[in-house]
């Protein structure tokens, strides 16, 4: 079966690639575009690790075919917070320029131990970012409901729930707890 030419916008930039009809958006992002932040676990819609924003809405990238994304706008975990200069090498090389900046949800997950192995984390961060965009001051019940579409096999969820509460604070302008690079002149 013929490949399709897929042109779309990913993290604000025009991208294109080839995909078989049956190639999911998640596989396309990972294998064709090299954006491996979108993780795949169950591949049938249950775990949420593949969550991306599709025209602004959080969706399962394993339940969309890449051909269906042609002409649409996708935001992956790589686009959730700007990471100028790529991976964070600051700890290894304090003089390196362009530490990747963390977005408020990422910062909150780090502060509150919202991750252990980190496999589920991209899906959680994308889902929580979309959730808080719509519900900026959630109750505890709303937080649990908002998290229900993502599975984590490590943390026991308490740290993740705390991270959502912390992200609410950070997004509303409270100061970040950790200031990374004070050793710089």
């Amino acid at each position, binding site marked *: *079966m013929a490949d*399709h030419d897929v042109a779309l916008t990913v993290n604000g930039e025009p991208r294109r690639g080839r995909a*078989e*009809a*049956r190639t*999911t958006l998640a*596989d396309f992002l990972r294998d064709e575009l090299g954006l491996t932040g979108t993780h795949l676990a169950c*591949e*049938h*819609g*249950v775990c*949420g690790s593949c*969550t991306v924003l*599709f025209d602004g*809405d*959080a*969706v*399962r990238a*394993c*339940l*969309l*075919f890449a*051909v*269906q994304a042609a002409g649409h706008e996708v935001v992956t975990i790589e686009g959730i917070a700007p990471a100028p200069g790529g991976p964070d090498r600051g700890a290894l090389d304090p003089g390196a320029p362009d530490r990747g900046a963390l977005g408020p949800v990422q910062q909150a997950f780090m502060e509150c131990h919202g991750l252990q192995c980190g496999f589920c984390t991209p899906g959680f961060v994308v*889902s929580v970012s*979309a*959730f808080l965009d719509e519900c900026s001051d959630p109750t505890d019940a709303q937080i*649990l*409901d*908002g998290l*229900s*579409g993502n599975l984590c096999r490590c943390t026991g969820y308490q740290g993740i729930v705390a991270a959502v509460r912390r992200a609410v604070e950070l997004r509303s302008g409270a100061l970040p707890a950790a200031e990374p690079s004070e050793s710089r002149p």
Partner: protein
Amino acid sequence: MKPAPFEYHSPATVAEALALLREHGDDAKPLAGGQSLVPMLALRLTRFAHLVDLNGVGALAGVELQPERLHIGSTTRQRVLERDATVAAAVPLLARAAPHIGHFQIRNRGTVGGSLAHADPASELPAVAVALDAELVVGERTVAARDFFTGTWTTTLADDELLTAAVFPVWSGDVRAAVHEVARRNGDFALAGAAIQVSVDDGRVARAAIALFGLDSTPVRALDAEAALVAGESLAAVAALAVRDVEPNDDIHATGAQRRRIGAAVVERALQEVCGG
């Protein structure tokens, strides 16, 4: 796992979509939100040589308030039901049911028509359609919801037909609705659930619609319970009547007896919510 290879079609009109379905017969399947079909393809529970994507058929999407009815195009996302003020005002039961469907990421993509056509016995929207006597528009013909669902994952839709819209009656007066269900985890399909809409006049229930899901292979309409509620019987009596005739089977999720007890409990909870007592 990955789906088996297929050919992808993206028609722009209903006529084009129907022509593709006619051409390829049972080798073709419509693709709406993909939230049920794609998992089944990925697990290789099913395979089709052709998928006909309905997402590019603009005419199928959208909600329109008409005199005394709400017309919902089949590819309208489930998320619209919970967000749209027109839906909440016109058919409160739809707005109450939607948040129970999976998770918000599922509802962002899953469609109203896909849920009805997929006809999972534990799904919320088929029960809402049966409770409210919705009319399901299948091209030229219109099917009453109670005749549309024929069994687990089975409807009267033929391979070359499309569900184009669902039309719900708009009740007048003081209309209240509630959906209660029990699921193992938040967002899972329900073990049993109840969808109830009433209109209240002068403190009394003047009109009632009650349907149960998860208790049989199709939604169960509880007509006797509705009559008892309007006649002023106790909520517990109405709940008992609602499950009187159901005999759910045992399965890996629950025994039939458990489902029946849960059914009565969720009917009573939903009644308490709408009757305020």
